[in-house]
């Protein structure tokens, strides 16, 4: 049975729809990311799960039970807020033990569990510090420890790393993933950072304008984007204009490949820059190089073609690289192309 189920979840502020029709089923122990640009409804979704924002449409089921009537204080979820929302007048240990105190855990056990979780998040020796006297990364750990110590059935993280500098963020990503693996708590992370979502999650929920665009494992979502939004939001991509013949073949400017599933007519194909290759003349479609940029390990080439503007990478492996103005043949393997279906408009 799924641990957490969202069914047709929706929320409006006045006439503005913030979230609409979110269907998601999360397995126990899974790490899920809600990924999307700012304002797409990620926080609203998370706050509905937490119980801070009332649900307008749909249901939330935790272990099969509807959460509608359960107040936030009784949901037993661990939440890390973007601003951390630590209690500034309490020490680190007091902050962490707060949830245990609310559960009337005896003092001795409270102390041992606090120390335990502090060790887990790498805060040993900080018990008597006040949050104000700590760096952003350390405060982030306190927030995580405070959420974890109550052994939550669900861990909700709202952009927990966005206030950290790039290097620290990467470090914390690794640690977060490792901590989540070791304790196995089902986790939902909200982020607008595609790298973070891909590095951390078992599955990514890509959201746009309050709706789900695609749900899948990071590599699937990256390699097989289903909509042009997903293709563009997760890394760079080429959208190629193509024509399907309705019998399992697709042609890009005369270059034919087998690609079942497309109805006859004009279609779009998404191909990642690293999957476009330079081919022998006649074994692809033609393109003219407009720009090339050396990036050390590889070259980044821009080109024009009848199928649209192209971006391709070419490993710096000692072979000659076409110069600006050269006409080249470009091809790709059928498996590297994703058929883009536009989301039906609401």
């Amino acid at each position, binding site marked *: 049975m799924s641990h957490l189920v969202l069914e047709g979840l929706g929320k409006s502020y006045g006439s503005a729809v913030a979230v609409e029709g979110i269907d998601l089923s999360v397995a126990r122990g899974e790490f899920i990311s809600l990924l999307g640009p700012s304002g797409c409804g990620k926080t609203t979704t998370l*706050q509905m799960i*937490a119980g*801070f924002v009332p649900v307008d449409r749909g249901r939330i089921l935790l272990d099969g039970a509807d959460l509608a009537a359960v*107040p*936030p*204080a*009784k*949901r*037993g*979820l*661990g*939440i890390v*807020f*973007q*601003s*951390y*929302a*630590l*209690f*500034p*007048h*309490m020490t680190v240990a007091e902050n962490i033990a*707060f*949830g245990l105190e*609310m*559960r009337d855990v005896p003092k001795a056990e409270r102390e041992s569990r606090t120390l335990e979780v502090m060790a887990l998040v790498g805060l040993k020796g900080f018990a008597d510090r*006040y949050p*104000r006297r700590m760096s952003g990364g350390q405060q982030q750990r306190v927030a995580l420890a*405070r*959420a974890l110590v*109550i052994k939550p059935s669900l861990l909700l993280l709202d952009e927990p790393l966005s206030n950290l500098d790039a290097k620290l963020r990467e470090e914390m990503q690794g640690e977060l993933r490792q901590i989540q693996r070791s304790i196995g708590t089902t986790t939902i992370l909200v982020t607008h950072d595609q790298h973070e979502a891909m590095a951390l999650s078992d599955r990514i929920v890509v959201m746009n304008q309050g709706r789900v665009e695609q749900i899948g494992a990071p590599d699937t979502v990256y390699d097989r984007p289903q909509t042009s939004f997903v293709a563009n939001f997760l890394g760079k991509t080429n959208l190629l204009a193509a024509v399907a013949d309705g019998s399992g073949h697709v042609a890009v400017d005369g270059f034919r490949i087998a690609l079942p599933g497309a109805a006859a007519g004009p279609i779009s194909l998404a191909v990642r820059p690293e999957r476009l290759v330079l081919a022998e003349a006649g074994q692809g479609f033609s393109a003219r190089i407009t720009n090339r940029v050396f990036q050390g390990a590889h070259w980044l080439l821009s080109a024009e073609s009848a199928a649209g503007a192209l971006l391709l990478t070419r490993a710096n492996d000692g072979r000659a690289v076409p110069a600006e103005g050269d006409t080249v043949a470009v091809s790709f393997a059928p498996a590297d192309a994703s058929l883009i279906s536009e989301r039906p408009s609401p």
Partner: protein
Amino acid sequence: MSPAASERAAPYWLTGPALLVFLGLVLIPLGMTVLLSFYDWGQYKGIVPEFTLKNWREVATDSYFLEIFLRTFRIAILVTLLSIMIGVPEAYILNRMSPGWRSMCLLAVIGPLLVSVVARTLGWALLLGPNGLVNQGLIAIGLIGTPLEFMFTETGVVVALTHVLIPFMILAVWASLQRLDPQIENAASSLGAGFVTIWRRVILPQIVPGILSGSIIVFALAASAFASPAIIGGRRLKVAATLAYDEFLNTLNWPLGAAVAVLLLVALVAIIVGSNRLIERRYAQVFE
């Protein structure tokens, strides 16, 4: 003058005018009042610039003065407590309102400050007098048989002063509520805390600085208030400020009035500084 020297002198030039005003309008009159409190005075000889401790001895030993000072600070403490009890929840509610409603309610809160003290206090007198609206209403619904005494009572003074001074409490507490993390209540609630616990353990400790600064303002203004005690308390119910006024303008015993005024000032400063120290030490973490 070299540029460096003129730069070093700049702060003095810039603060100079304000310093002069402060010196001229506050320090010098204050010093003269202190000096005056050590002068002699007689019914027929008037003020005599001779050093004497007579006024201070009188203020310190006569139980009449003690009673008035006790009343003054009792009123000030009650007004401060009432302002905290009403003002803190009010500030919290204001803070949670939508911006449109908030500015309207804020205007209602600050309203009393926009009306002249005398007009406002007379309004209270009309409302609370023996034939006032409150008493007539209470009698009409049969709650009381004879009018309640508000006029010329401490209760009346406390009610009127609380009304005037509560905006200062609300504004001070509101300012400190705005500094709270907007998610702090959600954080506490997600950890299992109910409304009362959130208030007691999370919100109150963090707004102590606001409550303290509000209390200092309200206490100081209540203890030195003149118009409200004068109109509602009348001649029977003197407080330190009305006492000093009477000594100056009715008895014409300026030196004694000066001693009362200086004592009020010293007591106020001592009480405020003392409680400030105490509370800042107790809640050291939120005062950084």
